[in-house]
């Protein structure tokens, strides 16, 4: 409980209430976006409804959600010195997006449990490192049960074995048979690789506990289904993997196949390359940010080019949470997200595509749990057990 290592600036910041710190962060984030991406303040716009902004019926609409497992701080992204790392977000996506500067995660800052919270609209408290399903119904279950959609219409592409159970909850009114199909591309590659050595650079399960790979649980997508469902031979899959430099690139490759072959209405992809930051290597963290920036733009381009998606898809991009501030002596800056300070809890979200206003920024506080009810309102299903509130600016 040493007091010796509290910095003067951290002490000054500690004097600010967490909500004030968050406000400060949000204000600078908004101003960065206004000056660099030319976005307008949403509060000054006349209200309009989603129905007035789109001609696509809810039943025909598609949604793709990209989450980052491993947030990136403003100084490496939206701040002037960080914008060089996210050219695609700044120049291509944000000008077309509605951007929310203050998405607060009040839950556990571990990637699996936080992604599960995003997917259920409830702050889940399951063990972050165990192969367990969420305790509350997921968006996939609400979507499929309410709208009577088949299993092929909701998919998750996730980075590591730990995410294998995210597709459906243990809730007794939902659960088995009602969730999303989950693909773990790295797991598929492990199964595909006979020798393993060619693919090792892609196979690390996660960065926070690099020595440990959880056992798979649940009914995973198996290697033989590559051919039957994604029309992809194991040899082609392996050959393509050889051209990729990271697990997230492999995930996006699988996403493209899914979009072409099955065109699900609800597609959720979780990226993880940025989380290399846990190894403490700043250059690799920056590389991860740049790659994620490029891959988000690739998915947006794929949406525009795929006939099943063009003109009727809304894309959401959001980190699951932030990372520790340099000013908090309890942490080690960019490396982790362990302090629970306002900066590690306050992240952002952008939405773009069908029915979304372009080039607008909103900085009122909202919570990560608001995503599920918002998607419910957009797609026409209810999420009765979600704790969040629909985001009115998108409806």
């Amino acid at each position, binding site marked *: 409980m040493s*007091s*010796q290592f509290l910095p003067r600036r951290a002490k000054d910041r500690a004097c600010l209430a967490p909500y004030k710190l968050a406000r400060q962060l949000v204000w600078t984030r908004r101003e960065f976006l206004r000056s660099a991406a030319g976005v307008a303040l949403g509060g000054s716009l006349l209200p309009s409804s989603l129905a007035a902004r789109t001609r696509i019926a809810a039943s025909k609409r598609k949604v793709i959600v990209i989450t980052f497992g491993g947030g990136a701080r403003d100084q490496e992204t939206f701040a002037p010195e960080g914008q060089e790392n996210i050219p695609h977000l700044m120049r291509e996506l944000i000008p077309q997006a509605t951007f929310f500067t203050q998405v607060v995660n009040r839950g556990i800052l571990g990637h699996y449990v936080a992604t599960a919270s995003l997917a259920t609209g409830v702050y889940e408290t399951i063990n972050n490192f165990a192969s367990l399903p969420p305790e509350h119904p997921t968006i996939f279950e609400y979507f499929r049960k309410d709208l009577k959609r088949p299993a092929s219409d909701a998919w998750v592409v996730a980075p590591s074995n730990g995410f294998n159970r995210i597709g459906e909850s243990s809730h007794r009114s939902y659960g088995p048979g009602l969730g999303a199909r989950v693909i773990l591309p790295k797991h598929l590659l492990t199964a595909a690789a006979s020798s393993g050595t060619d693919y090792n650079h892609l*196979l*690390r399960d996660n960065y926070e506990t690099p020595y440990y790979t959880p056992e798979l649980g649940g009914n995973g997508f198996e290697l033989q289904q590559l051919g039957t469902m994604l029309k992809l031979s194991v040899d082609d899959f392996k050959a393509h993997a050889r051209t990729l430099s990271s697990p997230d690139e492999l995930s996006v490759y699988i996403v493209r196949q899914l979009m072409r072959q099955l065109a699900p209405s609800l597609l959720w992809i979780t990226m993880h390359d940025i989380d290399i930051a846990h190894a*403490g290597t*700043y*250059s*690799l963290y920056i590389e991860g940010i740049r790659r994620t920036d490029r891959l988000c733009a690739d998915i947006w381009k794929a949406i525009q080019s795929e006939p099943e998606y063009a003109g009727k898809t809304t894309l959401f991009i959001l980190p699951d949470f932030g990372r520790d501030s340099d000013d908090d002596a309890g942490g080690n800056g960019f490396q982790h997200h362990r302090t*629970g300070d306002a900066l590690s809890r306050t992240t952002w979200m952008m939405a773009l595509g069908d029915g979304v206003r372009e080039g607008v920024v909103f900085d009122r506080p909202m919570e990560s749990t608001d995503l599920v009810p918002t998607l419910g309102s957009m797609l026409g299903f209810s999420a009765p057990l979600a704790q969040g509130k629909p985001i009115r600016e998108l409806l």
Partner: protein
Amino acid sequence: MFPSDLKSEQFNGYPPEARKLLSAYVGVLSRLPLSFLPSLLREAIEFDYKFPAERRALEKELANLDLLSAEQLRDWLQGFAQIHLSAALEHSDWINAPAQFVEQLSSYLWTTHQLDAFRSAALAYADRLRAAVPPEKPPAPRLGITIVGQGVTTNDVPLFRKLRPHGAYFRAVRPENGLQLLLNVVAERAKADPAPYGHWYIDGGRAAPYDPTLTCVSYHGLEPVRAVLSGKIRAEIERPGMGPENLRTVLAQLRPADLGMPKAGDAVLDRFQVKVLTEGSGTQIFSTTFAQWTAREALRRAQPLTLLVRFAPRQRQKPMNEMLSASHEVAELDPLGSLIDADMGAYYNWLNLQRLPGAEQSSFLVWFEDHSEAVAIGPTLPRGTESTTATTLDQLLNWAS
């Protein structure tokens, strides 16, 4: 068991000096909330292996708590008293295993959404403690030196962007014999102000020859220890039921002898090095992370008067599972990536130096090894300035001090 049931003989499992220290304060310890006490015991149980600055701080903290009246104690710790604990935590062996308790408490606080309340309580306590027991001023101004870019011949990345606003950026530093010159400066300071663990040299590669008065830690020097540790980790993760939390507990219990360190070594420094490797994320694998984390921990714990950190090229990124395997393949190096890591590491070294008492008088130098770029920061150096005048590293240190 609750703190109110505490007896001095319950510290019999502690190392001798820790036992002696705590036995003198059983009265006040028994009045502390359970959400607070194990954090204090986690520090105290390591008392025999702590650096002098840490020992003094802990002694003063205990003495201060002992001086507080019952009402003052309640007031100081009311935030902790409001934390709700589970029965499992209350019944755990928090006396003999305080570190495990704190780890489980952390998980529990996250799960029960009490982390923010605990954090507020901890900050409030730290503020009061700092006011009541001001941190010791150093006997001489501190000096931090960071050397980056070993092995880099050409570089297009602008360096020191985070540090330049805080000091003067020099573009025409004569690099000849720079490392030796800086090591000599550190050795001279160690002779002028001798203090145990007061003057450090941390190398992310193989240590250059250094004066024996310095406390030296190097990534290369710990290679055999890292190899033993990797073997132990591999063996542990293959055990049925082993998860990340269990693994952390196992690693936290490792002692220098478990990792093949000689018994005749420096017990305090050996324990410090083991903690760097078992508690620091990435320190076993990436030398740049090792250098940065070791510097952070040395500053936080030993509060040295002088700290020289030299970064070295880390291995190119490979999967961690592969890196941890017992392969004899020679690892490729990534000098340019390491330069970027070290540039950020230098900034963190400066930040951490600023967190110590006497920061307003401290000085800092970062130098691109064998090149002509450097930033010097000190009480009299102008901030955000740039110089193209030819100069030397010792001149920069004179200006910065």
